[in-house]
């Protein structure tokens, strides 16, 4: 089984996680830039974070045979902090990078005017750089937040096929399906979405434009929930090909629209440095 986790924050995970993910069949990941739990207070902090997403983190992943790409943006929560607004000016530099396959996560947290402005500005950047977009939907007031999100996406003029609306549930999936956007589901140990609920959604809404992710980060989360959902699909009678479509071909199709996705096997590209551990240089 081959799995592509289209949304996972590996910066917060250990090498044990990488090892277990590789053993579970996860061969490619996309890491959207996000809030880090601790608020940042200046754009330099973001530059270092973005550099890590196109530098150290892909290297770490490659040690386990996993392809790592990133999405870059000023996230909705920190878009509200005036000290972080200049991050918007840093984005063009990163949107030119090979490892950046989308703009994201953008969207709403508390649906403030500041979030509105950052959301629209970054949708415009996605159009300019011909990149797909990953849109976060709010935890609070989710149904109305999702409707408003879809309105803003439609107003921006971006092709809905270039947009994933993420963290959906039973209430919001229909709206997004009808919009033509891709539907993202974050499988969590006890909140957002569970493997059995995900299987029911796939039975009801089909497999087209469906993306399943673990969204594993620094909170209570599990980077193997993509695999557990794949197993739940098989147990519910979906075929191996159905699983491959949802867990591999769908995310490949979505992110390949960037023209930058590379899911070739690691060994083919960097034979000299293929290895199974992160080498320490003694300083």
């Amino acid at each position, binding site marked *: 089984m081959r799995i592509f986790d289209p949304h996972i924050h590996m910066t917060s995970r250990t090498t044990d996680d990488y090892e277990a993910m590789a053993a579970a069949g996860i061969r490619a990941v996309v890491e959207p830039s996000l809030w880090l739990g601790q608020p940042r207070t200046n754009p330099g902090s973001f530059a270092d974070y973005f550099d890590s997403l196109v530098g150290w983190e892909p290297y770490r992943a490659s040690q386990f045979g996993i392809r790592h790409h990133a999405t870059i943006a000023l996230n909705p929560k920190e878009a509200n902090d005036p000290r972080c607004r200049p991050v918007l000016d840093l984005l063009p530099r990163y949107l030119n990078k*090979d490892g950046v396959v989308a703009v994201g996560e953008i969207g709403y947290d508390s649906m403030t005017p500041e979030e509105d402005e950052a959301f629209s500005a970054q949708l415009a950047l996605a159009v300019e750089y011909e990149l797909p977009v990953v849109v976060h939907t709010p935890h609070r007031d989710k149904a109305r937040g999702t409707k408003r999100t879809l309105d803003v996406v439609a107003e921006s003029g971006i092709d809905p096929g270039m947009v994933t609306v993420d963290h959906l549930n039973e209430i919001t999936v229909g709206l997004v399906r009808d919009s033509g956007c891709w539907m993202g589901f974050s499988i969590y140990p006890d909140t957002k979405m569970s493997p059995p609920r995900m299987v029911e959604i796939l039975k009801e809404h089909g497999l087209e434009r469906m993306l399943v992710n673990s969204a594993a980060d620094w909170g209570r989360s599990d980077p193997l929930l993509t695999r557990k959902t794949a197993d739940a699909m098989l147990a519910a009678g979906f075929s191996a090909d159905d699983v491959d479509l949802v867990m591999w071909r769908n995310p490949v199709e979505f992110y390949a629209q960037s023209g930058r996705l590379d899911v070739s096997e690691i060994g083919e590209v960097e034979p000299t440095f293929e290895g199974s551990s992160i080498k320490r240089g003694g300083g």
Partner: protein
Amino acid sequence: MKPEQLRAALAGVPGEEWLTDALTRVAAESATIQRFFPAAGRRCGRAGLPGLSDWTADEAARALLLAALPAEEAATQVDSLYWHGDAAEKRAVLKALPLLPIGAAAVPLLHDAIRTNDTRLVSAALGPYARHLEPAMWRQAVLKCVFMEVPLSVVDGLTERADAELAAMLADLVAERRAAGRDIAADALDLLDKLTKEA
């Protein structure tokens, strides 16, 4: 390595026309390199080059873009592209340094690369341009290669530059590893052996 050799090795890669145009524009207006440099991998591919086993197409294209810069602006652009580069871009800058008319101005970039734990960057920092590195830092970098299991063949001019101080450092490392019951790479032992015999 000469730019002409890189150019010849790139004959027939995808994006050759794009590269020709980009080189002309960079020579005329140096700031345009900021846009072309990150795009080189997407345009020219990342395959190894026939006949130049140490170079990939994206690295060679990026090195040529740097070599096309007007001499008086090269150091500034090189600095900016390295500090704002992803890992592949940084590696390309490091590999291109010996081709550029910048003297020892880029030594701080080598220091940065040697501080990383990315074997691709540490290796690229130890090419011919490392002749500008002060001896203490150069020895540290060689020792770091041994720690990171990077083959010592990446170190340009290793046997000419290796000295008694490096031999002492290697001997300590070998003693430490043996005390711990751990192995050490054969090329490090060979080097130590050679230096000990010379002494």
